[in-house]
């Protein structure tokens, strides 16, 4: 039997696999790039360090929640509690970091809360076989209520230096985002991480192949929780304080970003780079429309059109082929 064709491949598998995954999102990348150019053209200050820093800071929390939503949707799940988790993360950060726990303790509290609530949600969805959309809808009330209990009205504080570090005039947020993306790639290179796709698209087949399907899905919920409360921590740092209802809009935006990025609802479809591009597009859209001088009515209409267009056009091209 001939071994010629595949022997050559053996050397490099990882990068071709990665390259293949760009296929579905190239169109979106082009759109995002066009928006980026438009933004840079309309606002040349974007190319300065502080202009870039400020822009990435507005994008950062949306990028995190888009990732948080995407990882769930890859496993065939979804969360309507992302916004509440962001609020909770912000509130915990703002009430602990200037207290005896300090920044490290506060960050740990935020992370543990995210992981814990995420894992609990995952357990309920996966093990008790309840529909994720409604479990997380109920969860959003519980988590949102918890945020209100911790901080009944906006307040609390984040140490000034932390705010300046994360949301000052340096692109630290962008660096953190790059780190998070690298960690994600690392996770996806572990057997458990890659199982996400199989567990989402074909759970029965994955189980029969020896994949710990339930474990992979629960882990996804935990990571999603961590990313959400992490986004909350950043929002708290960016604003210097906590607000128990600050996250509300993130729930639907995270879904919009993920779907814009080509993540499917059935599990196993799409890529994280797509979700990130989707969130970037949503964020860019706001600034570009500002600089184009759109009125609020035009903003609403354009926003709807861009979202539909970005999803429909690639679909259309697929059908044409």
């Amino acid at each position, binding site marked *: 039997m001939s071994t010629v064709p595949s022997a050559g491949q053996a050397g490099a598998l990882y990068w071709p696999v990665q390259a293949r995954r760009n296929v579905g999102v190239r169109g979106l990348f082009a759109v995002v790039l066009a928006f980026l150019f438009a933004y840079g053209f309309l606002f040349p200050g974007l190319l300065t360090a502080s202009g870039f820093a400020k822009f990435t800071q*507005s994008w950062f929390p949306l990028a995190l929640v888009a990732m948080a939503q995407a990882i769930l949707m890859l496993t065939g799940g979804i969360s309507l509690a992302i916004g509440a988790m962001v609020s909770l993360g912000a509130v915990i950060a703002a009430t602990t970091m200037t207290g005896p726990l300090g920044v490290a303790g506060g960050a740990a509290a935020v992370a543990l809360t995210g992981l814990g609530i995420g894992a609990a949600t995952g357990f309920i969805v996966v093990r008790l076989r309840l529909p994720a959309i409604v479990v997380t809808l109920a969860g959003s009330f519980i988590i949102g209520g918890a945020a209100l209990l911790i901080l009944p009205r906006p307040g609390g504080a984040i140490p000034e230096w932390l705010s300046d570090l994360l949301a000052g005039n340096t692109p630290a947020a962008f660096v953190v985002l790059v780190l998070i993306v690298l960690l994600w790639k690392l996770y996806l290179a572990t057997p458990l991480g890659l199982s996400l796709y199989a567990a989402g698209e074909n759970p029965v087949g994955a189980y029969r192949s020896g994949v710990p399907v339930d474990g992979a899905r629960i882990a996804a919920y935990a990571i999603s929780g961590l990313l959400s409360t992490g986004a909350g921590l950043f929002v708290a740092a960016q604003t*210097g304080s906590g*607000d*128990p*209802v*600050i996250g509300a809009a993130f729930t639907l935006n995270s879904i919009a970003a993920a779907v814009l990025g080509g993540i499917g609802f059935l599990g196993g479809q799409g890529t994280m780079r797509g979700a990130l591009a989707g969130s970037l597009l949503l964020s860019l859209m706001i600034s570009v429309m*500002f*600089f184009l001088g759109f*009125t609020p009515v035009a903003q*609403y209409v354009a926003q709807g059109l861009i979202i539909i267009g970005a999803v429909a056009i690639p679909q259309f091209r697929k059908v044409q082929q």
Partner: protein
Amino acid sequence: SQANAAAKCIKGDRKAPYTIGWANIYSVPTWMKQTQGTIEAEVETLKKQGLVDKLVVTDAQGDANVQIQQIQSMIDSDVDAIILIAGSSTAPARVLADACAKGIAIINFDSLVDTDDVTAKVNTDSAQWGDQAAKFLIDAIGGKGKILILNGPAGVSVSDDRRKGADAALKAHPDVTVLAETNTPYNVAPAQEAVTSLLFANPEIDGILSLGGALSAGAVLALDKQGREQVPITGENARQFLELWKEKGLKSWATMQPNWLGAFATYTAVQALEGKDVPAFVKIPLPVIDNSNMDQYLARAADFPADGYIYSPYDEDLFKKLLAGK
């Protein structure tokens, strides 16, 4: 040209005509739309005076994070003034500090931010609102009885401040029992639903302390639908409520968050840019609506949207007085 800039954030290096940025948190509700109307009218006036050449409007769609991004864009595009209704009482503080450092006049009205890095804040006094409303109600029920309290949404400073403002008066009257409280958006439907259930659960109610928005109309409708006698109730200047007040002959008292705060904020911004001294906090006296002047308000009802708010009249003289007076 004005070397001795007087107000905070003002550096005196900006010249008329100015570009005004109006950072709205959510432009769809009728109250906001009315406010926008007063701002646009004021801008027209100022344009004629050659003081303003452009109004830039953003709508954060209710998202405080988007509002931060939009304020950042206003800074980037170098507007001369930002007038602002904040989506969160804490979130915009840092971006406003940046704007202030750039010499942009910032006038924050209605929903305020906990920061001093603004040129001026313009608002009615929420605590006073709660206090006056509570005092009226306690008085109206004869210093004792069972009441309901209707609050705005939870986790929002304005509704919390109004509620806290009512505390002292309530404490001073131990015979006034608070049967239940609600937190709902400042809208008719949720208030009507909540009050209906509360009425069934607490059949004896002597008064309703309603702290803003269209909550009072909902409460009145709830009582009416159950065929119950109306009780004394406080409220705001929502047209629907005022019409119900007249129709049912309510024992009532209302105040308002006048929509012309927007026009006034615009005016103030230009004054500050022009080098005038502007107080850091302009406290708008609460206009009171009671049986004595209710008809005057209702007479103008047709000029306001059916689901809108009938605000008190205003003119430039009023603005001047407000800026000058303590």
